[in-house]
């Protein structure tokens, strides 16, 4: 019988010493079992480390992704986006990677250079090769890559290539909204516009929400394009424009030309960076007659039947006030407004009195720096001390300079039924500022005054100086203003600021459109005129036409009764066709 080889293990020790030997043997077995298990654990752990986990690290993409993530400092927060009222992106922060190389770690400089030259045609194979073979340990290869390009470079897989990632502010709309949005510094700090006004909110960005502005890029584009075209057509120096919602002060568009592209700061100059719509203050001339006429209507119930003698230029002290197109007759208040008579308006101002006019202008906020979130805001300029002659000139917009933003805000108050408005750039659900009100609710002028003023504004477009601003079906009302710019030797007849402030629809105003053209020159088509009726008013008409279709405002089918009643007030006008 053959013995089993393992049978030797199962021997039994007999005799006296048997129990002691038995004990020793079991200890031995236990000990060896312990070591076997211990080695087994080590073996399993090695299997785990080398095979199970090792497999994971072989995947190069993942290690590189990890590397890419870790190069971005964790403290760097993504600056919040800025969007328009419809959610269109105006400013965003993108993580861009810049490619650099450590030439010491580059394995195959020729192969890598070849691959890079294939990816980017901007640099040649030779230049890449030269960079990759440099002696120093850091060399920039390509700045600001987008992710798809970055992925392609990762596939080259050279250990000498690495990325430095950082957030870059990008303005997809380019120069379109440059002045309102502003721009940032190299370390992403807001330096101008809303970027500056909301610096803490944008940079903290804890909730990852975007800042929603009141702007509408479509209207902004229409406004900018029309002003641009007008500037080119009349070889003007500059231009500015605004569109505001009269009921809540929402700024739907704000244009200041020339402007700049915030993506390319190198090309920015002081002139292009200057916001003419809010920071620039101008003597806007006749558009101010809206305020002085409203002051008269507010203080006098029979204002519309009052007449003023405009037969002769008005002489007060050493000043002579003349009309641009003298009517040389006695005018009613609507006629004064319609033909934009300086003499008539100055007499109106005189009849209101210095205190009355000043108090009314103050109510409209024309003497204070406008209260708005935008950092670039100009303070109004007005005569100090204010003499009686200033009352006369200020009533037709001379000697008092305000920013277009301030003017538009005041006009909104006049036409919206008399409620004070504050210009708004951020939609209210996000605005954390105090004194926020949804819609205007503080009444500063009478409802009736507002009603009369709307009628008068409509009259200027139907029968007065702004006939070219008319858009059939939209009841456009407005007032032109052609002001001479103050030069070194008094006012310069050849340097004008032609502006138009339009309101529509006048039966229930919704929007104010303002256009101002700086130093336009007369052309053949305008019979040499560069006045507001030929420059700013037609531009505003085109803007309103475009707004109507963009915002889907249906035309009003029947002209309002109001138009007719106002015409009765100017029934004895000569010359002008009714």
């Amino acid at each position: 019988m053959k013995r089993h080889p393992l049978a030797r293990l199962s021997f039994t020790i007999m005799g006296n010493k048997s129990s002691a030997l038995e004990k020793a043997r079991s200890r031995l077995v236990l000990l060896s079992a312990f070591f076997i298990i211990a080695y087994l654990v080590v073996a399993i752990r090695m299997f785990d480390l080398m095979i199970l986990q090792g497999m994971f690290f072989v995947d190069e993409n993942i290690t590189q992704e990890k590397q890419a993530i870790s190069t971005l400092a964790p403290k760097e927060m993504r600056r919040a986006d800025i969007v328009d009222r419809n959610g269109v992106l105006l400013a965003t922060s993108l993580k861009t990677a810049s490619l650099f190389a450590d030439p010491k770690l580059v394995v195959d400089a020729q192969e890598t250079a070849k691959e890079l030259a294939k990816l980017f045609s901007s640099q040649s194979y030779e230049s890449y090769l030269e960079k990759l073979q440099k002696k120093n340990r850091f060399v920039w290869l390509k700045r600001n890559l987008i992710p798809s390009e970055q992925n392609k470079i990762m596939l080259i897989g050279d250990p000498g290539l690495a990325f430095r990632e950082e957030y870059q502010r990008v303005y997809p709309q380019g120069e379109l909204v440059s002045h309102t949005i502003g721009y940032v510094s190299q370390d992403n700090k807001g330096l101008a516009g809303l970027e500056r006004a909301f610096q803490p909110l944008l940079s903290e960005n804890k909730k990852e929400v975007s800042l929603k502005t009141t702007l509408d890029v479509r209207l902004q584009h229409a406004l900018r394009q029309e002003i641009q075209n007008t500037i080119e057509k009349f070889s003007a120096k500059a231009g500015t424009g605004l569109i505001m919602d009269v009921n809540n002060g929402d700024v739907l568009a704000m244009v200041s030309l020339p402007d700049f592209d915030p993506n390319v700061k190198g090309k920015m100059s002081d002139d292009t960076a200057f916001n003419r719509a809010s920071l620039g203050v101008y003597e806007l001339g006749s558009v101010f007659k809206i305020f002085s006429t409203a002051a008269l209507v507010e203080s006098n119930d029979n204002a519309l039947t009052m007449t003023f003698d405009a037969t002769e230029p008005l002489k007060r002290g050493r000043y002579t006030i003349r009309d641009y197109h003298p009517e040389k007759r006695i005018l009613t208040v609507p006629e004064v407004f319609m033909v934009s008579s300086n003499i008539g308006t100055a007499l109106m101002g005189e009849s209101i009195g210095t205190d009355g006019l000043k108090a009314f202008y103050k109510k409209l906020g024309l003497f204070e720096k406008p209260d708005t979130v935008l950092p670039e805001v100009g303070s109004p300029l007005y005569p100090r001390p204010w003499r009686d002659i200033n009352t006369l000139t200020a009533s037709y917009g001379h000697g008092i300079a305000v920013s277009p933003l301030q003017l538009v805000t005041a006009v909104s108050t006049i036409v919206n039924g008399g409620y004070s408005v504050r210009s708004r750039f951020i939609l209210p659900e996000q605005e954390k500022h105090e004194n926020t009100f949804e819609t205007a609710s503080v009444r500063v002028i009478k409802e009736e005054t507002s009603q009369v003023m709307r009628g008068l504004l409509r009259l200027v477009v139907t029968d007065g100086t702004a006939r070219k601003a008319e858009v059939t079906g939209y009841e456009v009302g407005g007032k032109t203003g052609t002001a001479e710019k103050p030069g070194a030797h008094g006012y310069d007849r050849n340097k004008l600021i032609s502006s138009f402030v339009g309101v529509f629809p006048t039966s229930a105003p919704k929007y104010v459109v303002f256009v101002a053209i700086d130093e336009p020159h007369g052309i053949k088509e305008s019979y040499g005129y560069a006045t507001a009726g030929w420059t700013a008013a037609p531009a505003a008409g085109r803007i309103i036409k475009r707004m109507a279709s963009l915002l889907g405002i249906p035309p009003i089918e029947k002209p309002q009764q109001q138009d007719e009643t106002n015409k009765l007030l100017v029934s004895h006008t000569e010359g002008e066709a009714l």
Partner: protein
Amino acid sequence: MKLGRITTGCILSAVLVSGALLFIVSQKVQSTERDINFLETKIAREKESVRVFQAEWAYLNRPDRLEKLAANSQLEPTAIPQSLDRQIMIQTVVVPIPIRKPVFEKMDNTPALIQVSTQTEKTEDTPIITPQNNSPEKDENFADLIQNLETGVGE
């Protein structure tokens, strides 16, 4: 004696089993952590590329560019007559209808051209959109915009 052996055996096997379980659990935890890490990285990357796409979308939809493209493919909006009579309005507005459904080719920076079949019958009244091959200016590339960024002015 026998009892002691049994308890030793039991304890030993319990140690082994719990050790093995612990090992499995720790393996699982580690692999889950890796997965989380991987997914988080991936999500971050995807989010970042979504942002890039959103920016590119906004860039390509700039009103002036759309206007240019519309002019190129003769897709300008029909002028709405300022007439107040609806009947006249309906009669005067002729909306050009492409004969075939537009086919958009190539979604990169070249403009999508509208392919119009010329084989189908055409009626006399319907204006037909003919594609034009005016490619927009070179500056329409988003990657170029990003590369030429000069964000931030030095103090």
